[in-house]
């Protein structure tokens, strides 16, 4: 933004939210209170710090396991992978970054979708994973989200979306931007068929994902402390030279300004989604 063209407004893959102590600290050390846990301890508390309530990041598969009735989840579209339409090459080729992300996370891309049930209520789930290239949305994330909407429409069940994303994936250029209207069209069709969408925003949900499907749930929920801003804190402070409020872009600030229906702690998320699914159930 040296040229004063300042409009970087879709946050991207390598942008990490401000978590000062997470740089070198062990991933199981709480960035808020410094407590340290074993993997199994954190898994037992749904990766919420028992001392201070900090919500650690949760991968897509672990999240699905936390939410759905055991054995009910059937994953769809596992074979979809990103192509490289621009033959994008920055310091490394996009194809290499993709391969590396798949090896690191065991995921085909930054979203896992499929049919499942929560508290006996059937639904479709579209769950993002920040570990895969910062949860960035390219063609595959858009396509899998749309197919999830289509399955929900066909099965006459609600869609539950859990987002965690730095925004659009710039390695796919303008096609990444086109995933915004693409996902929005799918939600329009779901709504037209009488289907409901529940959107859960987790840390962080920014840029193009916030500016598309994540904001369009019939009900929009967020986890405590989740960053949910269109532009990230660093971009905003660099562009405007404003001092940012302490809770800039956080769920708590968004709730005060009327952008959220509720902030739901992770320990209550399954029950809350169950309640909402019952309320939206079609007889």
């Amino acid at each position, binding site marked *: 933004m040296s040229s004063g063209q300042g409009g970087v407004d*879709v946050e991207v893959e390598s942008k990490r939210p401000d978590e000062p102590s997470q740089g070198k600290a062990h991933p199981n050390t709480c960035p808020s209170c410094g407590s340290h846990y074993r993997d199994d301890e954190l898994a037992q508390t749904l990766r919420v710090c028992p001392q201070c309530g900090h919500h650690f990041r949760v991968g897509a598969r672990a999240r699905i396991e936390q939410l759905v009735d055991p054995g009910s989840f059937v994953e769809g579209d596992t074979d979809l992978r990103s192509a490289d339409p621009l033959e994008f090459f920055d*310091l490394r080729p996009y194809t290499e970054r993709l391969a590396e992300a798949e090896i690191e996370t065991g995921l085909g891309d930054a979203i896992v979708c499929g049919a499942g049930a929560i508290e006996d209520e059937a639904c479709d789930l579209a769950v993002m994973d920040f570990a895969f290239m910062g949860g960035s949305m390219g063609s595959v994330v858009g396509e899998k989200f749309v197919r999830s909407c289509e399955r929900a429409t066909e099965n006459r069940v609600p869609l539950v979306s859990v987002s965690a994303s730095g925004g659009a994936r710039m390695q796919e250029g303008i096609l990444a*931007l086109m995933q915004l209207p693409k996902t929005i069209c799918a939600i329009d069709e779901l709504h037209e068929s009488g289907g409901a969408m529940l959107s859960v925003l987790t840390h962080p949900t920014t840029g193009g994902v916030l500016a598309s499907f994540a904001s*369009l749930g019939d009900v929009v929920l967020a986890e405590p402390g989740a960053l949910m801003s269109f532009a990230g804190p660093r971009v905003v402070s660099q562009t405007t030279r404003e001092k940012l409020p302490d809770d800039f872009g956080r769920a708590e600030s968004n709730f005060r300004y009327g952008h959220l229906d509720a902030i739901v702690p992770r320990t209550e998320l399954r029950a809350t989604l169950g309640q909402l699914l019952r309320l939206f159930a079609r007889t």
Partner: protein
Amino acid sequence: MPNEAEMRLRERLSKLGGMKLLRGTKLSGELARLQDQLDQLQADPTAEEIWQSVELARHPDRPYTLDYVERIFDDFFELHGDRGRADDPALVTGLGKLDDQTVVLIGHQKGRDLKQRANRNFGMAYPEGYRKAMRAMALAGRHGFPLVTMVDTPGAYPGVAAEQHGQGGAIARSQAAMVRLDVPTVACVIGEGGSGGAIAIAVADRVVMQENAIYSVISPEGCAAILWRDAGEARKAAAAFKPDAAHCLELGVVDAIVAEPLGGAHADPDAASALLEQAILAAFEEIEALEPDERRRRRRAKYRVMGVLASS
């Protein structure tokens, strides 16, 4: 992939050949320019040509939305305010006559001199701007007025108040409103098509893009700052993500390229307006006869297939 784009260009070429000149506009050049475009499309734009587009799209003398409005629309009446809390000068809305038909216009607006530029916030809208746009879309739907949008923004404004007022949600809802509209819609990318701030008003039945406009997911400087860790590498970034019109056409993101006068739109704003008007009228001609439901179905189907996938 280029074949489909080529087909569409050829189709336009053949149509133009048979078109009568309206109101004495200078169309003579367009045939030749489209032929040029076709040649260019076959030879991929070079990094140098892409950067030239970036510079022309941001040229300080490039015509902005209101420059086109005064040349293309008759009886233009500007509509102000989002009916909630503000009037955002970075995004203008209004009513006007296009070829004797009342249409609704929505466009980003940049300022020309220092004072205007600050007032228009360099064409970077707040959520209030997108809410004003949604108000204009609703008006268009209510009265059956076709909608024309003009896209020219570096991006939606990244500021504290903009976030507090719900920038992400406003951009999402503005797109959703465009998806649902019953009336014919044409979006024109006339300068910088900067990311979410641009797509917020660019989900349309037909999207046309001026020859030297750019359309991208992030600014070249922003991309360079992140991937190259140096905003000075903007040229390399632009060459990598290819925001130029030829690539946007090739990828199916825009439906047509609108020729500009030699040297760029700023070299002859009257001629640029005539060419843009022609392209808008041609786009409406393709979609206005459709039933509203069919038009919406096709609009959604168009976006349904955007993206490129591989299977493992």
